[in-house]
């Protein structure tokens, strides 16, 4: 099993969600995140005082999938989240040892 995690631009969330649903993904976790990569934040001005804001708002989207689906899900997220501008985000995949469904107690692939 794999955990695919995508950090994306907030305004791409709807498109990514729709694309994942269309690709047959049945569940996902979405959370607000903040951070920066190569784009390095932005500046804000309050009464003439300038502040550098390093951490810009992002969305973290997490999907648990079978090993064989991980590649395809990554592609779907990348395609749907891409704007071509700096700050589009990253997607990575990590191995997951075990999963349990809380309602039934099922384990492993049964619980996906």
């Amino acid at each position: 099993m794999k955990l695919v995690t995508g950090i994306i631009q907030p305004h791409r969330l709807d498109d990514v969600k729709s694309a994942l649903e269309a690709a047959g993904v049945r569940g996902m976790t979405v959370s607000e995140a903040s951070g920066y990569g190569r784009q390095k934040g932005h500046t804000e001005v309050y009464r003439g005082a300038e502040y550098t804001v390093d951490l810009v708002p992002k969305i973290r989207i997490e999907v648990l999938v079978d090993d064989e689906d991980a590649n395809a899900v990554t592609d779907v997220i990348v395609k749907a989240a891409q704007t071509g501008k700096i700050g589009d985000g990253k997607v990575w995949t990590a191995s997951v040892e075990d999963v349990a469904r809380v309602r039934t107690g099922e384990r492993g692939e049964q619980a996906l």
Partner: protein
Amino acid sequence: MDALNTGNTAWMLTSASLVLLMTPGLAFFYGGMVRSKSVLNIMMMSFGAMGVVGIIYVLWGYSMSFGSDIAGIFGNPADFFGLKGMDDNANALFSFEDSGVPAYVWVAFQATFAIITVALISGSIPERVKFGSWMVFVAAWVTFVYFPMAHMVWGGGLLTKGPSTPLDFAGGTVVHINAGVAGLILALIIGKRKGFGKEPMRPHNLPFVMLGAALLWFGWFGFNAGSAGAANDQAGLAWITTTVATAAAMVGWLATEKIRDGHATSLGAASGIVAGLVAITPAAGFVSPVGSIFIGLIAGVVCALAVGLKYKLGYDDSLDVVGVHLVGGLWGTLSVGFFATADDLWEGSKAGLFYGGGLTQLATQAIIAIAAIAFSAVVTAIIGYIIKATMGWRVSEEVEVGGIDLAVHGESAYENISSGRIVSEVK
């Protein structure tokens, strides 16, 4: 003395209520500009001023402002202590312009001015001051600075005796210069917030700031139009000049920001509103609507530039009491010397420079401004240093960093995730 005038009385009661609303409005204006860990504390500084001054004003405040003159500095506190004798036939009606308003109503109106003036000062020292020290300062400052200043300018005291009668319609000197100077002196005595100039100290809730500015603008109609003392043409003029100057100041501030920083900001709009309200306060009933456009526009530009001074000079006037109230109040007070439309707007006053009155009124306005700065600075410094030496002003560094709301008030304004459990519902 005229008989009771119910129309004027109704307007003055309304005005008093409007001005009272300004202080909670100020609490929101200031509350949005501090960091989220300090929002309750700064709001409590305004509400605390309402508590202390509300009591003191009826005990000796009114009497010290408008009682019989002592040395030209303050009124006799014994004259109307606890408002005694105010319902006697001789004192029952306030005699200002024969408006037929009960003296009680005039007391109510004036009390609200004292409350907001002290509350204004809190903007220069938020996020670092012991609440008890602030409450003691409120009582001392209103007694030894505000009431004497009100007496000197409005109560027939020393400052009414310049080359001509000084014009301060609704408190440019008594309220804004006075509070602005006190804010500067306290910021210098108390010192900077930990991390000032190094850590970001962004406003945590700009919608609060906008809400506060809106409430201030609304309440300011009582402040300025109510200062006519009656429901009359001067009140109408003051309403218009208050609105027009404020609109112009907002535009002036936003234009300054757009040119200097590239963005017209919401904080700039809210700040420009307050700068315009401050600047038109001393002039509201004395200038033409077109004159008020210039007063406002210049106030917006000048105050927008002045708020940067604290970074250049290195004092932490956190929410710009100096940049907005002192600078705006000074400009407003001087502007009367340029824009006052005629002689004898108050008996013995002269027309402004642009209306053929020469330099006399401008000189008078400058004299009261300088005298007010000197008086407020010296007495505020004495009070400030006494509190520093006795109770101390500052909370510990640990409290300041960890959050003054939680440490001082036992509360926090926001929670991100529900945690903890009920210990007991009711004690």
